[in-house]
């Protein structure tokens, strides 16, 4: 029986010739991850298992990403728990200042590779699916078991296929494609399913742009988002890979639970209005004088990669952040930070009046470095705009691409890039 990409990877990792949606399987994990928020619970649970060592320290990664450099005593205590466990077990560990946001860091460092099964105690683990891996987020207890045994139970998900045709317009980015898609199917439109993204529009995209799309699969309820491996993937992977990898391809006659086709040339710069990623509308329909903003955040595992910073700097550089607006720029990893430094992007942002910080999740989840007050509104390149996500329960987040966010910072209100750049 033919299989989808997700089914191929899961079959290979469960020692079965084939799997079908609904099968309960025990899956071998190539990589297991937790961060400074989820690791403390995972470690507590790991201790209860009565196991003394993780299954393979080279495949267990712990990353200080969310509340770092630590914002208060409690977050410092949690970071300490993770650091001490990493030392004790000899796990792969990224210290504050040397890593960054988990989902940007792992592909960048060649730790997650095509064909992998990767489980992480963080819902945006699905980001790494852009490499042709089966990457999925779970809770800390699941991850404790995976750390101990190298295995975890899964139900084989049905696969929904999303095919993008045509060339994107001048100001349309991969972020607009995924916001539009979630708007189309709804925030539970792919619950429990694997979202397989493909089509000629994606073939022309960089890995930075692709990772933005798979990052938001969970915002449609997806168990993972995956993309097919091509030359772009392999060019990205080859210089970074720390071990061998396997390329899987879906069978041509594989069965999909549904197929959605999109004409990318017709998708405009899109924003998701409060309070749901599924509340997607073209920016032209909601911009204008009335959509006053207080803050812009450019960063996160969705859009904090070097291309995102370059594009934002191109719009903000040589201009000024509008009066009454704060613009916060945070690269997703320290390697990206260094690259931005070398390319003069930090100077451009700083001269324009932006705050530029070291790699962290920062304000995305209302941690710190840009938390919103009551009634404030932020245009953000991140992935969630639920009530209270970035601060006060009565603050608002509008999700957008880096070019829309940058244009909005300059305009002082939600703006289409062409309103700022002629």
């Amino acid at each position: 029986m033919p299989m989808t990409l997700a089914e191929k990877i899961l079959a290979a990792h469960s020692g079965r010739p084939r799997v079908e949606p609904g099968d309960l399987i025990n899956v071998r994990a190539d990589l297991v991850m937790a961060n400074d928020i989820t690791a403390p619970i995972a470690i507590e649970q790991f201790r209860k298992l009565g196991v003394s060592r993780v299954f393979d320290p080279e495949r267990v990664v712990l990353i200080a990403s969310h509340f770092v450099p630590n914002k208060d005593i409690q977050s410092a205590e949690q970071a300490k728990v993770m650091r001490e466990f990493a030392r004790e077990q000899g796990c792969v560990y990224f210290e504050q200042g040397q890593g960054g946001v988990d989902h940007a860091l792992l592909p960048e460092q060649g730790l997650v590779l095509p064909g992998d099964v990767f489980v992480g105690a963080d819902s945006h683990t699905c980001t790494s699916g852009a490499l042709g891996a089966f990457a999925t987020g779970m809770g800390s207890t699941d991850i404790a078991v995976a750390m101990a045994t190298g295995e975890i139970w899964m139900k084989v998900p049905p696969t929904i296929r999303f095919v993008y045709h045509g060339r994107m317009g001048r100001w349309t980015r991969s972020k607009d494609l995924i916001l539009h898609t979630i708007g189309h199917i709804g925030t539970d439109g792919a619950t429990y399913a694997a979202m397989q993204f493909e089509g000629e529009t994606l073939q022309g995209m960089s890995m930075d742009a692709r990772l933005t799309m798979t990052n938001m699969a969970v915002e449609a309820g997806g168990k993972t988002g995956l993309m097919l491996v091509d030359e772009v993937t392999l060019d990205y992977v080859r210089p970074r890979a720390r071990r061998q990898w396997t390329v899987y391809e879906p069978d041509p006659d594989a069965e999909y639970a549904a197929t959605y086709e999109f004409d990318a040339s017709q998708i405009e710069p899109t924003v998701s209005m409060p309070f749901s990623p599924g509340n997607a509308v073209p920016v032209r329909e909601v911009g204008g004088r009335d959509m006053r903003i207080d803050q812009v955040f450019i960063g996160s595992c969705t859009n904090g990669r070097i291309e995102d910073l370059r594009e934002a700097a191109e719009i903000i550089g040589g201009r000024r952040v509008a009066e009454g607006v704060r613009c916060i720029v945070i690269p997703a990893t320290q390697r990206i930070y260094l690259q931005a430094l070398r390319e003069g992007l930090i100077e451009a942002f700083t001269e324009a009046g932006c705050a530029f910080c070291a790699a962290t999740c920062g304000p995305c989840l209302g941690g710190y470095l840009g938390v919103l007050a009551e009634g404030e509104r932020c245009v953000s390149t991140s992935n969630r705009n639920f009530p209270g996500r970035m601060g006060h329960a009565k603050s608002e987040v509008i999700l957008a691409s880096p070019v829309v966010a940058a244009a909005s910072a300059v305009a002082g209100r939600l703006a289409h890039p062409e309103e700022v750049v002629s």
Partner: protein
Amino acid sequence: MSIRGKAHRFGAHVDTDQIIPARYLVTTDAQELAQHCMEDADPNFVGRVRPGDIIVADVNFGCGSSREHAPIAIRGCGVSCVIARSFARIFFRNAINMGLPVLECSEAAEATQDGDELEVDLATGTIRNLTRRREFQAKPYEPFMLELIEAGGLIEYTKRRLAGPGEVEGV
């Protein structure tokens, strides 16, 4: 096992940021987390909830972040069970893994109003709305989920598996 409690009704797509906002994720202590349970959805919830009470919600309950702090906070403030029209995947997994009963039942969710008295038989999945004198049947758990629940969650299940003679059949 039978549960009885008052219903606290929530809407659709209640995400884990509303269940326990990220600003409180600096601890793993259930009692501390419980003080802020549902804070961004209903700031008065913690003041009203009593041990044994039941959360009833619409579709996609627990969407968003994978934080296990969400079911920990819910259980920490004494909630005995969550009934919803549907659950987000990771929340469902987390709840089962830690032994917080979660029941999928559209009919019960639709018919239940805030403050209704409910009685739930976890073994059979029968939900009785005592206020409205109606009875509903939740979607049954798959056998493997039942095994997990009966073992007392994933940690106990895995401990047994690690101690046992070999692979658990089927999984």
